[in-house]
């Protein structure tokens, strides 16, 4: 075939195909020379299954991890590891993953666990009942895989305690718990080792004989407190309640003063300095010798609102001292008043290791006797809450021993704390402590992920140019 002079269009096409082929070859050479990853080193992609993460020990996981990293990276030291976790790793695996950061190896992980942040707190109520206040808060779903309709399940060693569908926040007051207490939402789990604190359940009641002292003692006894007291009935006769003894924190958790003038201020001060709790109820907020430890100053008596005992705000039907909280004291509860201001009715303050609480209500027994049918329970709950403020709950010894690794309480949160937040699956990876991938890096990664495409592009370009030249007679 006699070679012909190519047309201008054909010449441009052949040059274009040649250029594409040369560019493809240049790109292949560049990819071969330029290491992958934002730090210029190859990335290793590992995938760990739920069973591997749950069953592996640190030794086996570390061995497998190193083997896979070395195999994937050749003899080049990796700087970044991409992982997809399909379950929350166990304690040792989390420790190992966290240790990678110390070796300057960042971990990008894709969250396939379907778990989310979950917080569980269990606080022992300072009451003889041994009740525990439990609060749960879970993060909102963060990924498409996470079911937003998972039930919130509360369990202890005895089994399931409660289950609430379609919620991520809940609170309970549990009468008793067999530790450990666990909460689960989908694949998320949090756990706390609860224990009933060992503290005395005895209260000293210092009051004059009367309906107030009678019904306060009754309310406290119904709540499980052992009440000791001594009432002076006549100048030479006193009636005792329980077995009153020396005011000492080894014997009493709280001393409740109502309206007695027979107050041994030195003993009460000593009791507070030992860590005891003091409740100044009603007229006791006016006991002069206790003013130095009182959390509030009582000014005048607020009159009772007639008929209010039978409403849904029965407290307004009680006379109460107007309290002015001292500096450093906390107003725990206030009443809406008919005046232009809210009125503190429960004020608490720490006094060294002890606590002092002032309760404004006078003759609170009327709440129980003259209120609604719920009045007795409300009166009991009120005094229980007042004592819970004053009574200190000692920290439960043994928790640290029983569960030395605090991260086990919330494994997912511990994982995030150790290796950083997971990489959102619909966004470019942002390694913890590293920079985000550039658009160029992303394109390169895509090219690297599809080498056949590059080869096809070069081959088609070269074949096209060759075919064009042959068809017009050139060799």
């Amino acid at each position, binding site marked *: 075939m006699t070679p012909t002079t190519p047309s201008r269009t054909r010449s441009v096409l052949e040059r274009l195909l040649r250029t594409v082929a040369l560019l493809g070859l240049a790109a292949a050479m560049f990819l071969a020379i330029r290491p992958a990853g934002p730090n210029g080193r190859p990335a290793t992609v590992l995938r760990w299954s739920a069973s591997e993460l749950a069953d592996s020990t640190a030794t086996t996981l570390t061995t497998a991890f190193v083997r896979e990293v070395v195999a994937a990276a050749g003899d080049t030291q990796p700087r970044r590891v991409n992982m997809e976790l399909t379950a929350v790793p166990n304690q040792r695996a989390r420790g190992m993953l966290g240790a990678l950061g110390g070796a300057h190896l960042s971990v990008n992980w894709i969250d396939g666990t379907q778990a989310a942040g979950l917080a569980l707190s269990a606080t022992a109520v300072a009451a003889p009942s041994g009740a525990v206040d439990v609060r749960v808060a879970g993060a909102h779903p963060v990924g498409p895989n996470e079911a937003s309709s998972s039930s919130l399940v509360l369990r202890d060693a005895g089994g399931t305690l409660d289950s609430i569908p379609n919620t991520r926040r809940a609170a309970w007051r549990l009468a008793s718990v067999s530790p450990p207490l666990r909460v689960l939402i989908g694949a998320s789990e949090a756990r706390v080792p609860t224990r009933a604190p060992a503290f005395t359940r005895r209260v000293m009641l210092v009051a004059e004989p009367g*309906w107030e002292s009678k019904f306060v003692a009754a309310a406290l006894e119904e709540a499980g407190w052992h009440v000791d007291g001594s009432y002076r009935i006549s100048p030479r006769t006193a009636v005792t309640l329980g077995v009153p003894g020396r005011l000492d924190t080894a014997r009493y958790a709280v001393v409740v003063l109502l309206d007695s*003038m*027979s*107050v041994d201020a030195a003993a009460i001060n000593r009791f507070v300095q030992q860590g005891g709790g003091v409740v100044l109820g009603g*007229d006791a907020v006016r006991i002069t010798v206790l003013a130095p430890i009182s959390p509030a100053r009582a000014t005048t008596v607020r009159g009772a609102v007639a008929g209010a005992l039978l409403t849904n705000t029965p407290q307004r039907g009680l006379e109460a001292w107007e309290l002015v909280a001292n500096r450093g004291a906390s107003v725990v509860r206030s009443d809406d008043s008919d005046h232009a201001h809210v009125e503190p009715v429960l004020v608490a303050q720490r006094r060294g290791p002890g606590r002092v609480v002032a309760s404004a209500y006078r003759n609170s027994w009327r709440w129980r006797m003259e209120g609604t049918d719920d009045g007795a329970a409300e009166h009991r709950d009120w005094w229980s809450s007042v004592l819970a403020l004053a009574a200190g709950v000692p920290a439960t010894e043994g928790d640290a021993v029983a569960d030395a690794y605090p991260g086990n309480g919330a494994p997912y949160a511990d994982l995030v704390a150790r290796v950083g937040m997971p990489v959102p699956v619909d966004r470019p990876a942002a390694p913890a402590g590293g920079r985000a991938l550039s658009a160029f890096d992303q394109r390169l990664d895509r090219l690297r992920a599809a080498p056949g495409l590059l080869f096809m592009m070069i081959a088609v370009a070269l074949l096209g140019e060759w075919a064009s030249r042959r068809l017009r007679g050139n060799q």
Partner: protein
Amino acid sequence: MSDAVRDSMRAEFSDQTALEPFVFATAQYESGDWDSAPMLPANVIDSVARYTSLPVRPQGVSVPLSSEAVFAYPLLFLTGHLPVRFTTREADVLRKYLVRGGLLFVDDHNHDVDGAFHKTVREEIRRVAGPLVPLPNTHELYCSFFVFENGPPTTSHEMNGWGDNLVHEQLDAVLRNGRIAVLYSSKDYSSEWSFHPDNKRFLSVDNTKFAVNLVVYALTR
């Protein structure tokens, strides 16, 4: 603490606060004769004031059992001779009164276990509060102020053979949460404590001392 110091503190405290005085309350009920012992409140009040330092209001009150006003008086006295049938309202109020912690003291003014009051009021108590059971003579009621080693003191009506001609060894009670909710007496304290102040019959042995125990028990337990 010395008495002088205590007295000065009491004076200071009293300026700032006012301890509620004890008020003796008698229950009015629609059936029967609730006011059969009109002198009793004054004598009980006198004894409480005389033997104790408890603040006590000089006059007692009478409160309809059908009224929620009874809730303001956690110790309530009920007596009579005639058959007792609580109205629905009275039974409802009394039931709430006892649940909330009130103490009802019922005394048979007939001193007669075959009498109409005894039979009917015990039936009413059973209906409202549950069955009455014998109160042990070692109960703290008998040592809450004065000590009655042999349980409830006898009355002159028991000793003189009136009524059922029996000396009742024990009182009966309905207990709630370890406390006496209803105290029932067949001993006729209504007659024993309802005497005229000029009556010299009890000058040697004051028979109202047990009433002081009852008031002190109600105020402290």
